[in-house]
């Protein structure tokens, strides 16, 4: 019996410079964490595109479903008190 596989899939997130958000880049295949980091670097950062990398097993990603879009991402227009413009500031108050 052949045990040959294409190894596990991992999702790659990279930070372009310190202080920035980690952004999803794509995925790679690797058998373990160490190989995943190495392959992520070789695949997604050949020109100094990153300063830091996260790798996460693809099977561990929990994603929302497109059908839930209305429920999850309701713009909450009925909650306009979340906007700074909702509030009336006293006449003459500055820097607020």
């Amino acid at each position, binding site marked *: 019996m052949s045990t040959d596989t*294409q190894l596990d899939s991992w999702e790659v997130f990279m930070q372009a410079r310190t202080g920035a958000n980690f952004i999803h880049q*794509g995925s790679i295949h690797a058998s373990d964490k160490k190989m995943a980091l190495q392959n992520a670097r070789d695949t997604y950062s*050949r020109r100094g595109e990153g300063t830091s990398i996260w790798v996460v097993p693809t099977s561990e990603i929990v*994603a929302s479903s*497109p059908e839930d879009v209305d429920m999850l991402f309701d713009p909450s227009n009925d909650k306009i008190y979340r906007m700074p413009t909702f509030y009336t500031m006293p006449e003459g108050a500055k820097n607020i």
Partner: protein
Amino acid sequence: MDSIQDKLSKDEALLAKFEEKVQAGESVEPRDWMPEAYRKHLVRQMSQHAHSEVIGMQPEGNWVTRAPSLRAKQILLAKIQDEGGHGLYLYSAAETLGISRKEMIEQLHTGKAKYSNIFNYPSLTWADIGAIGWLVDGAAIVNQVSLQRTSYAPYSRAMVRICKEESFHQRQGYEIMAQMMKGTAEQREMAQDAMNRWWWPSLMMFGPHDTDSPHSADAFRWKIKRHTNDELRQKFIDKTVQQAEVIGLTVPDPDLKWNEQKGCYDYGEINWDEFNRVIRGDGPCNKQRLEHHIRVHTEGAWVREAAEAYKNKNEQQSINLN
């Protein structure tokens, strides 16, 4: 009985919604509903694209050990490594459609999946490395720039990344050609010979003429394709002819002529018999390219097996520790 009717009308409603969304210019993500034909078309196109990047490493790899200088060798290695990377971006983007990497490679090995015809031509001299970078990558760029706006988001994202890396590929090829054209008579002849052999196959990379393109209607309606084969081919010709002139190369097409009225070049008849012959497997290197891929894949199996065994051993150890 009722349920079949229900399902049909539900699918129709989903399809209508999908097409409306795509028409509005929205992109499609992996978990969104999509028609089966859309998924199929993309799997075919993206896996073919990925295989092309990987198989394309072979004609260039042929010259790594014979590059004329250390500089040239470093550049060529970096370029080939990029192409491997492009293959990986595309395989992982295709995997989001539910096909596994293993299946894609099997399909390549059995001939069910294709790769670009251009890589079935041999790289005979160092000038071929120049011609490949300049013409083959140049043609690929025209196609890939257009695909940056393809409707399937993971494909589009991979294209954006690839396009950023491609301009170095084309420039290093053009530099080789320019250098050889400034060299000895023999070097100039070598460059012209490479031009003569790669020009027409490069034009064929865009595929058949629009009038002979059988299943492109869906691809346009679903915005997988954004420009026709002939549009892209014309764009490539129009920008490449001037580059050839600058360095003194002759485009091997006696019918090539600037058309003042249309504002673009007219060009001669493409040899579609040759194109079809090479697609059917009768190109100069079809057998060699595939055999090489199969051999390397098979010989590399122990590495993947060892990696899996190492992972399993470590997992077992951490269980025992707990």
